[in-house]
């Protein structure tokens, strides 16, 4: 039982990280129907920047992470203005190329500037060997609980921004009907810019948290990005709540569900953690066959 609880917190905290990155993907997708393939790279670079601010400059870690994320928000804003806005939003191909290109460039620059050796990265939460709470014999480490907490806070923030602020309203309007948004006086370019910056900010914070659990190197966000895509797909690409739930589900499949199946279900002892990924994707496939737009996504009915 204690093992189960522990694994569950692990799974939830992993899921929380996938969820946060998935939310940033959904933010951009909602407004533009584009997938930002550079999201992982932005998060990765944000973590490196946090490393520079916090480790090398000696600022407190949380400040470092936030500053790193803020830097990436500025970068993303620039990217949107210069590289994305010139393109007709209904033509996906050039923008896909550009986000891919940016992802490659970010990875290359990070490897070049910061070197390719792994670094370890601290957690903003107490992460010593004794920093945990005990429930029913399970050791729930602060660092993991902290991540879940951050997820809750960030999702709350997103909902707050989108539903209670003027720019959030503008953003939802642009996502819903871009042309009509112009007709009510919304500056769509600026609103999208805000969306990109917000998404990058999220990604940057996520990167700062994830880096503690893996190592800090130029590719550490790759796996997370894949899982986040999966999470967003599962939840529905235009649903923020869906992204969160999708992330949590995938995190839970990874742990504790997969180890449990491996240990307790006869015939499944070959199920490695890699295969957990496979299971997650089969799950997504199944969901999509039944609900082609994801669990919470909206299917656009097309009139013939």
């Amino acid at each position, binding site marked *: 039982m204690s093992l189960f609880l522990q694994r569950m917190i692990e799974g939830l905290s992993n899921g929380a990280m996938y969820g946060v990155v998935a939310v940033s993907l959904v933010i951009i997708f909602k407004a533009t129907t584009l997938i930002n393939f550079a999201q992982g790279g932005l998060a990765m670079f944000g973590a490196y920047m946090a490393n520079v601010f916090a480790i090398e400059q000696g600022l407190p870690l949380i400040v470092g992470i936030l500053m790193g994320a803020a830097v990436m928000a500025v970068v993303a804003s620039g990217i949107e203005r210069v590289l994305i806005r010139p393109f007709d939003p209904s033509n996906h191909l050039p923008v896909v190329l550009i986000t891919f290109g940016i992802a490659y460039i970010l990875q290359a620059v990070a490897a070049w500037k910061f070197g390719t050796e792994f670094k370890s990265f601290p957690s903003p939460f107490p992460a010593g060997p004794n920093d945990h709470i005990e429930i029913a014999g399970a050791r729930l480490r602060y660092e993991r609980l902290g991540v879940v907490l951050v997820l809750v806070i960030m999702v709350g923030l997103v909902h707050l921004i989108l539903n209670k602020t003027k720019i959030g309203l503008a953003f*939802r309007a642009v996502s819903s*009907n871009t042309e*009509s948004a112009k007709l*009510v006086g919304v500056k769509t370019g600026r609103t999208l810019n805000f969306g990109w910056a917000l998404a990058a900010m999220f990604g940057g914070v996520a990167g700062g948290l994830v880096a503690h659990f893996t190592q800090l190197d130029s590719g550490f966000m790759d796996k997370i990005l894949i899982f986040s895509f999966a999470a967003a797909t599962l939840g529905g690409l235009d649903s923020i709540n869906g992204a969160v739930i999708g992330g949590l589900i995938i995190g839970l499949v990874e742990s504790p569900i997969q180890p449990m199946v491996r240990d307790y279900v006869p015939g499944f002892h070959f199920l490695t953690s890699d295969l957990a990924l496979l299971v997650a994707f089969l799950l997504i496939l199944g969901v999509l066959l039944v609900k082609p737009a994801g669990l919470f996504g909206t299917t656009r009915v097309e009139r013939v």
Partner: protein
Amino acid sequence: MSVLEMQDVRARYGQIEALHGISLTVEEGEVVVVLGANGAGKTTTLRAICGMVTTTGTVNLHGTNIVGSDTADIVRMGVAHVPQGRGTFPELSVVDNLNVGAYVRKDKEISADIDKWFEIFPRLAERRTQVAGSLSGGEQQMLAVARAMMSRPKVLLLDEPSLGLAPLIIDDLFKQFAQINAELGTTMLVVEQNANLALGIASRGYVIEAGEIVLSGTAEELRNDDGVRAAYLGV
């Protein structure tokens, strides 16, 4: 000075020119109608005013030429456009649609205005938290008009408001237009295929065919014109 004045306006979609130099005026407080068949260029006229198509020529809003301006800026200058097909925000609630309609405003009377429009359109009040996409055609049209009026525009552009609606609803709607014009003095430019209705609330009108204005006059003159009667009034 007229509220709206178009001089020799040409508009094109890509390489295809849809308006071949049209000119029209709308005076303050008027309801002016533009009649025309499908494809004649009615919608393009309104889009040209809003800067949504490539336009050359002059479009004077209160004397300022707005050709080449950004749509959002034109809206800020006091133009509201209800596009063809309503243009509501399907995922947003009714009340949010109205809120976003007031996007350009910074005053404190937005709530009061929302209440006012809910009084005028009680059907919308009943559905205030529903998403706009779930409303019927008539309700969406009401919402679109209310949304446009939320910005307290000086000029209201209506693109085929009767399209796809049941006759009773259309009657209701046009009564509302007349009332808005009478009580609030909002200048209106209405583009319609349904000449009967449109001429019923308008003071003046134009007829557009194949991207050119072919006829203009008072509503009475147009109603008595043989050509108009044959083509648009089915007489």
